[in-house]
């Protein structure tokens, strides 16, 4: 027997309080009030068992005060009684454990990682020590000393005085991506599958525990105190509640009782680990290790965090999804599948469904709400209102509308511009002017985003002066944009404000009015494949409506054929298509061609000439003319045939082909080949003689 402690080297010795190695020692154990010892053993084991469960909670929530207190109380109680019974080893271990837990209780130390392991070890060692006392007591023989106790006590001291550094706790060597705790335990060979199943069963059939049991598990009262209280209750004939009796017996405080009662009322459902530990199937320490495995894997608990992903990778993923969709549709529409079994058809349907879902998911990955952009506008409005001395009531609607990230990033500047315009030009000059016009002092500017018919609309509406049609027209005539005597629709007139250098502001302020802006706004919006439209009523206000595609990755395209080639024309830029008659086409100096439709005239371009396509239809009378509009300019484009309209995923042609005129990009066609998207502006530039305003001039001719 090794000497461990200075005062009493081991439990047997301390019990006997006689010299070491004496055969009389066992007898002394029994003499040392066996009744009291038995009670202590039972109580201590119960405390320790509960402590296990609480340490598990600490493992998951290191700052859980209730659990730390419970474990602290367990050791505290054991220490007290052990001291009384002169079980020095137990007392020493309890004392050191108590010190560590006390620090944790005061928040001076976080019980995590190897510290928790140490507490588990203390509990386990304590259990063994007590079981030894029990054996010594029942078999009436000398006790064995606990190996390694000295070391454990020292380590506990080191934790308390801060010389043992904190490290991550030991985890099970089990792959546990998103596994449940039961699986991890079984995989780790720590629990039998049947035991886990039984525990799961009891988890579901679990009933709220009785108040007394709960109090015992919280180490507030002992079982004997509970028995005593129950006996009192029985004597009273159940007149008093158990809690009352316990308080009157001084076993518990009202505070404890109330807390436990409230716990009791919570839907029970103990954790699986707790049940397994209680049933003695698995050691609490092992459950803790399993929990660490489980928590070490991201995605099991806090997977809702946003993950930053490289945009290029995201695009690659979306590309691949697009390919999958194409490959899937090619396979499922292949001729070989005609007459396939019902089963195969069903399986293909399933595959189809999954692919579509994946595609939707892919598209949604790039979508972000416009809220942040709108919030930025609120700030600007506030600043502007102050600067201009106007009163502005700014309303935003539909902030949760989701747009492609690129659109959200790029729409900010045009929006700032338009909001400024709405306040500076749109609203009346002063609150007084508004009152005079019979309006509320504060001008109302509304910024809203909404979904409508497969597009997203962003609208800026003000209840100010409205656009003055005549002023705009006069200005346009002055600048030569519109000729005398030419009649324009309201919409055409309002659209003149987007012309470069066009400003109707009589006074240039530092906010707006220099005439640079609206043309930039329109270019930006068209760059996002959007359209901008104005509605206005003089004296009532204006509505600027921006229509944007849901996503930049997909466009509606008209597939056209020229010779053996197929091209895609963005549907957005097609005004209409006509089958020309001889009278529609006018040749100028046998070089340029003009298309004359009703009273309008457009330059006519032949795609096959521009792109040098062989075996295309040369006779315009057998071909189709698409009338296209881009940046306010209208042109006719001769193609052989319209093949149909479809949604097309846009791809870049890559760096090597950048700057290729006439081609805006590529698209993957439903058959997996590449289609080229026509750049309407680029084509006009290729011909070279089309300056800005050509469309207007030709229509005026």
């Amino acid at each position, binding site marked *: 027997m090794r000497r461990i402690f200075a005062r009493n080297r081991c439990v047997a010795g301390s019990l006997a309080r006689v010299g070491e190695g004496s055969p009389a020692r066992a007898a002394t154990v029994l003499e040392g009030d066996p009744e009291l010892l038995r009670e202590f053993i039972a109580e201590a084991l119960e405390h320790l068992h509960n402590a296990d469960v609480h340490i598990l909670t600490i493992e998951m929530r290191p700052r859980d005060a209730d659990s730390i207190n419970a474990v602290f109380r367990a050791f505290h109680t054991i220490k007290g009684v052990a001291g009384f019974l002169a079980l020095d080893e137990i007392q020493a271990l309890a004392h050191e454990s108590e010190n560590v837990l006390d620090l944790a209780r005061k928040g001076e130390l976080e019980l995590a990682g190897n510290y928790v392991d140490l507490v588990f070890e203390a509990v386990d060692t304590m259990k063994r020590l007590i079981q030894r006392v029990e054996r010594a007591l029942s078999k009436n023989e000398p006790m064995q000393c606990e190996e390694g106790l000295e070391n454990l006590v020292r380590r506990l001291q080191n934790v308390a005085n801060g010389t043992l550094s904190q490290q991550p706790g030991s985890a099970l060597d089990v792959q546990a991506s998103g596994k449940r705790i039961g699986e991890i335990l079984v995989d780790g060979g720590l629990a039998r599958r049947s035991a886990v199943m039984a525990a799961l069963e009891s988890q579901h059939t679990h009933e709220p525990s009785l108040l007394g049991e709960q109090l015992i598990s919280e180490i507030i009262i002992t079982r004997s105190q509970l028995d005593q209280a129950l006996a009192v209750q029985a004597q009273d004939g159940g007149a008093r509640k158990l809690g009352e009796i316990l308080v009157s017996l001084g076993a518990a405080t009202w505070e404890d009782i109330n807390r436990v009662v409230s716990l009791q009322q919570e839907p029970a459902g103990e954790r699986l680990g707790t049940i397994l530990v209680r049933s003695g199937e698995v050691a609490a320490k092992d459950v803790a290790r399993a929990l660490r495995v489980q928590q070490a894997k991201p995605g099991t608990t806090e997977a809702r965090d946003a993950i930053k992903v490289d945009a290029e990778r995201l695009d690659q993923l979306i590309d691949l999804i697009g390919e999958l969709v194409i490959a899937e549709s090619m396979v499922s529409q292949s001729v070989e599948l005609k007459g396939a079994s019902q089963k195969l058809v069903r399986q293909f349907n399933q595959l189809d469904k999954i692919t579509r879902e994946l595609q939707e998911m892919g598209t949604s990955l790039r979508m972000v709400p416009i809220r942040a952009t709108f919030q930025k506008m609120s700030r600007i409005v506030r600043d502007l209102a102050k600067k201009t001395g106007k009163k502005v009531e700014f309303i935003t609607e539909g902030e949760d509308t989701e747009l492609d990230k690129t659109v959200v990033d790029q729409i900010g500047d045009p929006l700032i511009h338009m909001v400024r315009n709405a306040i500076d030009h749109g609203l009346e000059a002063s609150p007084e002017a508004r009152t005079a016009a019979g309006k509320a002092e504060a001008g109302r500017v509304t910024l809203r985003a909404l979904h409508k018919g497969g597009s997203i609309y962003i609208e800026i509406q003000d209840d100010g002066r409205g656009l003055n049609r005549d002023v705009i027209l006069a200005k346009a005539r002055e600048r030569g944009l519109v000729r005398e005597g030419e009649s324009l629709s309201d919409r055409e007139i309002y659209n003149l404000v987007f012309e470069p250098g066009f400003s109707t502001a009589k006074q240039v302020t530092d906010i707006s009015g220099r005439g640079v802006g609206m043309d930039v706004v329109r270019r930006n919006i068209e760059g996002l494949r959007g359209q901008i439209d104005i509605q206005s009523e003089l004296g009532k206000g204006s509505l600027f409506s921006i229509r944007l595609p849901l996503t930049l990755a997909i466009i509606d395209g008209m597939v056209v054929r020229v010779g053996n080639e197929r091209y895609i024309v963005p549907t957005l830029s097609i005004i209409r298509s006509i089958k020309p008659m001889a009278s529609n086409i006018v040749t100028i100096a046998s070089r340029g061609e003009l298309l004359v439709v009703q009273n309008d005239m457009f330059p006519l371009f032949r795609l096959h000439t521009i792109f040098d396509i062989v075996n295309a239809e040369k006779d315009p009378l057998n071909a189709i003319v698409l009338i296209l509009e881009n940046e306010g300019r209208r042109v006719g484009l001769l193609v052989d045939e319209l093949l149909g309209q479809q949604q097309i995923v846009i791809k870049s042609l890559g760096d090597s*082909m950048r700057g290729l005129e006439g081609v805006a990009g590529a698209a993957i066609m439903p058959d997996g080949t590449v289609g080229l998207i026509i750049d309407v502006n680029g084509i006009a530039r290729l011909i070279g003689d089309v300056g800005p305003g050509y469309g207007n001039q030709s229509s005026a001719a």
Partner: protein
Amino acid sequence: MGRALQRAAEAKDGQMGNAMVESVLDGEVSLASRAGQYLTFLLGAEIYGLAILKVQEIIGLMPVTKVPRTPHYVRGVINLRGKVIPVVELRTKFEMEQRADTNMTCIIVVQVASSAKNVTLGIIVDEVAEVLAITADQLEPAPSFGNGVNTEFILGIGKAGAKVVVLLDVDRVLSWGELSAVDQTIAS
């Protein structure tokens, strides 16, 4: 031009001018560093090699979409698993005679270093042969043909047994400014 190269390579044992020897000495270090594995392919009877590290994959011929207003040796673009990449006809680039595609015609997808970043593109070749390990002592510098023949894009000449392989510097063969340069003959 390719034939001429080959002829020159065959005559490698013959007289090498003094100037030639000097250029060998100059290029000694870089030449030795060019030893390695090359993917060889055929254009007619000529054998060419591409550094294996430049090669991404070899794919069968697939429908190619013509792109207007590009140099004549650009056959068009293909869809490589969702990525649109240009494909180049090496025959046309080397001004060899046109030949109809066969079963053996295929596309070697390579990574070409351009000014800013790597560009992926396909090269249409008659047939892919094998991967050859070319050691430093099997390497000869690119021969000089005098005026008019550009040998800039030749890394060297490799001798593997009886075969003579023209090792191409793919970054230079298809220097990237070229593809986007509008071919004026087409635009007219």
